[in-house]
């Protein structure tokens, strides 16, 4: 019964807010916002939008950054998996990359900026000894007009996500035998893998790739930190317009949000075109018998890129930590003159409230997501049919629709429904984003569960519920704990939804971090970004301990 309710309930919870939100964006985009005295429909907002100077550049930079960073991240993952699967370094990097998934985007971006800016840590390390620089060189690295810093920052942060998605899909491909077969036919590792395994692997990670494109073409926080500024990408300008004191800008902002929806959709279509192209090239190469026997250099590029990406995030966190305790730290000193805990003592007293809220909302949204995902998966067990294409698309919907396109409208819709910002409301909105990740990370181990265990339990006279409680869920405890940690990490990292739905009254560690980072003080940024990165990490540690506890303290263990 519960299981039967699961899927429709999950769908309503996922699609409902998005539909309501897009409606709330659509109406002002066509000039309808009674509070401002506009209660007739018109297309004027679009004219105003199109007259905006530099709009084309904003479109191109968002689109380009999204596509280029996705290509870079996917390419790195592809080369690395192709060249190094079954090698010890694969397992080592796998362990190194997984925690990076939990590092919030804003924290990673700040760390990257603090690292590579002309006055950044890398320049300080080698100056003035190697460079002769006493002042930082006047070169544009971060916020460059081409968006190269943004592309690099996004690629670094998206790589762990695509890598883990690839890992999850690997067991469902005949990777081992195919690779051996290709090797026997004289193909190099990379070429053999790409010809035989990659096509079926890619089919399975295609939706996550689309989600990455949708995210990176409409990202706000990373783009504000690393992206071009003259002009910024469209999504950043949208937030500026929405926040403009000139309230009439809302119409333009709403029209822009629809345009952003179009840009992200276009990016995905362009990607599909690229897929076709790549497929044709691959088939041609395959048909020509191109074996790429000597692929050591290519393999080296694969592992070096992955290692560099991982090292960048870790080094970035280290520099954030350094700044959080830095006193006066002038260029080109490699280390601060003196260390001080002033930043921390300034922040700590104000930490309790947002910290508790982050944990509470994250835990509640995660618990709710599990309570929905488990029945949905149970229902799958009962019908024996895995989720259809449409349902899978629906699960990904909140990840495929740019947040900005529906959150602003959702805020208006919630208010129109007479609801005040409250913790339960925040949990509900977080759930929209948490549920897909929880479902996706739980569904693979759930489906991989050996169902003969269920038959054994039934044969021993156990009912479905008892079987679930005493056999299946305990055996899936590690997977459940990991899914919970993923969900928690997603909830902690949510910025725009928390800001817009909480209306500033429900601050979390992340909204505080970005709000105070708006103040631009590197010490304050260091403290908050570290706090923001610590919470999800703690979630994963607790998950690991919990699942071990379940195995140790099971029934009959004396």
């Amino acid at each position, binding site marked *: 019964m519960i299981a039967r309710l699961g899927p429709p309930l999950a769908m309503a919870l996922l699609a409902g807010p998005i539909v309501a939100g897009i409606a709330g964006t659509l109406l002002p985009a066509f000039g309808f916002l009674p509070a401002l005295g506009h209660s007739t429909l018109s297309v004027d907002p679009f004219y105003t939008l199109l007259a905006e100077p530099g709009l084309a550049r904003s479109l191109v930079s968002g689109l380009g950054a999204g596509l280029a960073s996705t290509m870079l991240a996917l390419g790195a993952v592809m080369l690395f998996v192709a060249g190094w699967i079954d090698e010890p370094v694969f397992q080592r990097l796998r362990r190194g990359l997984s925690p990076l998934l939990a590092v919030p985007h804003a924290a990673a971006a700040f760390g990257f900026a603090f690292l590579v800016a002309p006055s950044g840590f890398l320049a300080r390390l080698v100056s003035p000894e190697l460079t002769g620089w006493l002042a930082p060189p006047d070169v544009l690295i971060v916020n460059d007009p081409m968006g190269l810093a943004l592309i690099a920052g996004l690629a670094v942060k998206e790589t762990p996500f695509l890598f883990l998605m690839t890992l999850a899909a690997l067991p469902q491909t005949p990777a081992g035998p195919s690779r051996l077969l290709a090797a026997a036919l004289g193909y190099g590792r990379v070429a053999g893998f790409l010809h035989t395994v990659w096509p079926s692997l890619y089919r399975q990670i295609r939706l996550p790739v689309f989600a990455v494109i949708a995210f990176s073409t409409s990202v706000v926080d990373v783009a504000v930190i690393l992206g071009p500024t003259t002009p910024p990408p469209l999504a950043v300008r949208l937030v500026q317009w929405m926040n403009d004191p000139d309230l009439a800008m809302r119409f333009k902002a709403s029209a822009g949000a629809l345009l952003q929806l179009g840009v992200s959709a276009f990016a995905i279509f362009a990607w599909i075109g690229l897929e076709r192209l790549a497929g044709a090239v691959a088939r041609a190469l395959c048909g020509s018998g191109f074996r790429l026997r000597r692929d050591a250099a290519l393999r080296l590029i694969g592992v070096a890129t992955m290692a560099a990406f991982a090292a960048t995030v870790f080094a970035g966190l280290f520099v954030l930590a350094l700044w959080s305790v830095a006193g006066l730290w002038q260029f080109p000193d490699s280390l601060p003159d003196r260390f001080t805990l002033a930043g921390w003592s300034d922040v700590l007293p104000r930490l309790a409230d947002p910290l508790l809220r982050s944990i509470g909302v994250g835990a509640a949204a995660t618990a709710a997501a599990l309570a929905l995902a488990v029945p949905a998966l149970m229902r799958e067990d*009962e*019908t*024996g*049919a895995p989720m259809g294409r449409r349902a899978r698309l629906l699960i990904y919907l909140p990840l495929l629709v740019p947040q900005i396109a529906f959150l602003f409208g959702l805020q208006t819709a919630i208010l129109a429904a007479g609801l005040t910002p409250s913790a339960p409301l925040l949990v509900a909105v977080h759930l929209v984003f948490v549920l897909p990740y929880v479902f996706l990370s739980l569904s693979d181990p759930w489906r991989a569960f*050996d*169902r*003969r*265990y*269920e*038959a*054994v*339990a*039934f*044969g*021993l*006279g*156990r*009912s*479905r519920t*008892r*079987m679930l409680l*005493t*056999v299946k869920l*305990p*055996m899936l*405890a590690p997977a459940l704990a990991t899914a919970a940690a993923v969900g928690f990490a997603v909830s902690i990292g949510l910025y725009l939804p928390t800001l817009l739905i909480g209306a500033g009254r429900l601050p979390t560690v992340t909204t505080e971090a970005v709000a105070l980072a708006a103040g631009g003080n590197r010490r304050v940024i260091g403290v908050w970004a570290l706090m923001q990165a610590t919470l999800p990490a703690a979630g994963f540690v607790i998950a690991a301990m919990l699942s071990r506890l*379940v*195995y140790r303290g*099971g*029934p*009959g*263990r*004396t």
Partner: protein
Amino acid sequence: MENMGLRLDKVTIALGDHDLLEVDCAIAPGEVLTIMGPSGSGKSTLLSFVAGSIDPAFRASGRIVCAGRDLTGLPPQERHAGILFQDALLFPHMSVGGNILFAIPAAERGRARRRSLAEAALADVGLAGFYSRDPATLSGGQKARVALARVLASHPSMLLLDEPFSRLDADLRGRTRDLVFAAVRARRLPALLVTHDEADAAAAGGPVIRISA
């Protein structure tokens, strides 16, 4: 006597438009009916149909009667159909003793009594003293015996054997087979064995149904 056994009444299994098999037979208590056939012939599906956990992708018809009870349509947990697979499938989050306790019917009350029943069940399969062991530390043969002890402890009214010996090496296979068939005879359980190993069929000693793909 006929009344006490397991009866498969005009059972058919189909996948889509493709009829896989048709069985109409009776198995007396203590008797092992062997079904042989290549993989994909639907023989394992027949077992899951009897157990009540058939994959909804298959269509099955016919009646299953055991000890005079019509099981058709009953949920799996009401059928008392003990199953042994080719893997022992011991619950990894429980100790060996926990696995047995899990099987003992709830009607057996009292911690001490349940524990002594579990210890006895282990002793019956030659594993006295294994109560607190972690299943992960057992050898393949030991695991198979715990699985047997576990299924017997649940007082099943029949035994379904899904190639339970195929993963064991030749020597171990013979001994485990003897142990299982001895238990079937001693407890007078009707048993249904699915296998592709002629030696299994010979050792079972009962009737054999051969199905083609």
